[in-house]
């Protein structure tokens, strides 16, 4: 497996902050990985994504210490709110997705080919002529992921990508991640949506107050959640529910 990102003892502090958002974090990301990062709000998962993809401190400012090596030619990032990630300049979904390849100055046929492939991968070819602002949140988030994939990033960071989506749209988004990883992209997902993340993760990493508290196979790391521990203690048979909605569903059954 090609190693794309290596962090060793990475510590990052935002401008003006008095304590680091992540501290002493070490991780490796290779092609085909789907790494799920979990933690409570403020644990540093979103910051870890920005550091691992090179956007921090280059774009957001701040100071990074420790070792970071990014061997990926290009990294992409997707945030929770799809409408903040639109260019605001493209009248159709096809134009929105073609924006990235067009920014690289590629020939028009190559640009459109990249857009078509990204739309096919995200199963949104039928939306090509629609206006982005007229789409539902779920459709729009898939458009945003396709727009990032169109520039063929070797590392794709997803920051709570289903936060604004309904359950069906969230399922549809997570369902395409294995295919993207299989194409050779390393994926790093920060999310509290552990049930869905567990379905697609190849590894998991848990953060608390900016420090790594567990890293390894998803079954080992994610089953350490409080909900899973409660289910285990209550004699619930495995696989244990990882979050409250899953626990409620299990109780309902």
């Amino acid at each position: 497996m090609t190693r794309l990102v290596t962090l060793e003892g990475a510590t990052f502090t935002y401008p003006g902050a008095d304590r680091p958002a992540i501290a002493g974090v070490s991780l490796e990301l290779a092609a085909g990985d789907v790494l799920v990062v979990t933690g409570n709000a403020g644990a540093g998962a979103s910051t870890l994504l920005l550091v691992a993809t090179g956007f921090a401190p280059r774009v957001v400012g701040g100071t990074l210490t420790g070792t970071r090596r990014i061997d990926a030619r290009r990294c992409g990032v997707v945030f929770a709110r799809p409408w903040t990630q639109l260019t605001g300049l493209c009248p159709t979904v096809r134009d929105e997705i073609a924006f990235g390849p067009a920014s690289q100055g590629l020939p028009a046929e190559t640009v459109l080919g990249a857009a078509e492939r990204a739309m096919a991968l995200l199963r949104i070819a039928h939306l090509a002529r629609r206006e982005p602002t007229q789409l539902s949140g779920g459709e729009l988030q898939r458009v945003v992921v396709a727009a990032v994939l169109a520039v063929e990033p070797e590392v794709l960071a997803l920051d709570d990508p289903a936060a604004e989506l309904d359950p069906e749209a969230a399922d549809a988004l997570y369902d395409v991640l294995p295919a993207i990883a299989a194409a050779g992209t390393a994926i790093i997902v920060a999310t509290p949506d552990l049930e869905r993340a567990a379905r697609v993760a190849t590894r998991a990493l848990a953060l608390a107050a900016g420090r790594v508290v567990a890293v390894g196979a998803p079954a080992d790391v994610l089953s350490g959640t409080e909900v899973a521990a409660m289910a285990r203690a209550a004699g619930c048979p495995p696989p244990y529910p990882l979050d409250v909605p899953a626990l409620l569903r299990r109780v309902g059954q």
Partner: protein
Amino acid sequence: MIGYVPGRSPLHRAHPYTTLALAGALLLGAFALTQPLEVWLLVMAAAAFAAAGGVLRASARTALLLSLPIWVLLFVLHGLMGAEPRMVVGPVTLSVPGISRALVLGGRVTAIVLGFLTALATASPHRLVEAMTAGGVPFSRTFLLASTLTVLPRMRERATQILEAQQCRGLRLGGSPLARLRALGPLALPLVLGALAEVDEQVLALDARGAAGGARRTALDPPRDSAPQRALRWTVLALVVVAYAWKFWSMHR
């Protein structure tokens, strides 16, 4: 009405540079003309410009709403407090040169606002970006201009959403001027903070899609230009130069 309105009018179909050249000529012409009759002919030209874009009624209404406070201020300042000679109109005595001055200044404001609103309503930001991209303008400058054209409608839309949300939580917009002023607080803070957060994410999203790469972008669908449109742009430029030459010649003869 502030913002782009899709349509099939001659201005919508024109090259965006032509639309901007006509709006620019109205702006520059407004400052070159010094007599009330000249300025009001320019207001007529601005109205014809809006009519050619099929947005006369909406643009004129907004332009009047925006320029009405300035009209009132100008008539108070120049009409009531202007120099001799004065004329009696009903219960008030008005300054004749002051009224003339107010007509010139008010006409200028109206022509400029009407021209700007019409350009905003008929020049598609996407087509403008494509035209500038085809012309080799760096994306940073293209984005700056296009964002400026789209910022007002986006802010207005966000303000409406915030106001509705705050009203759901009991915010009252009516009452005394002081109460109305107080109601601005719950609107302004989320509006500004929300805009800053969105800009932060959009910068990262655009960077992830190669917008800051520095490569010359590929124009996928540049608007068609034509010899008559180029001739029109040169003609309005020449007219502006003649108007300024006339102004300076008149001042120094």
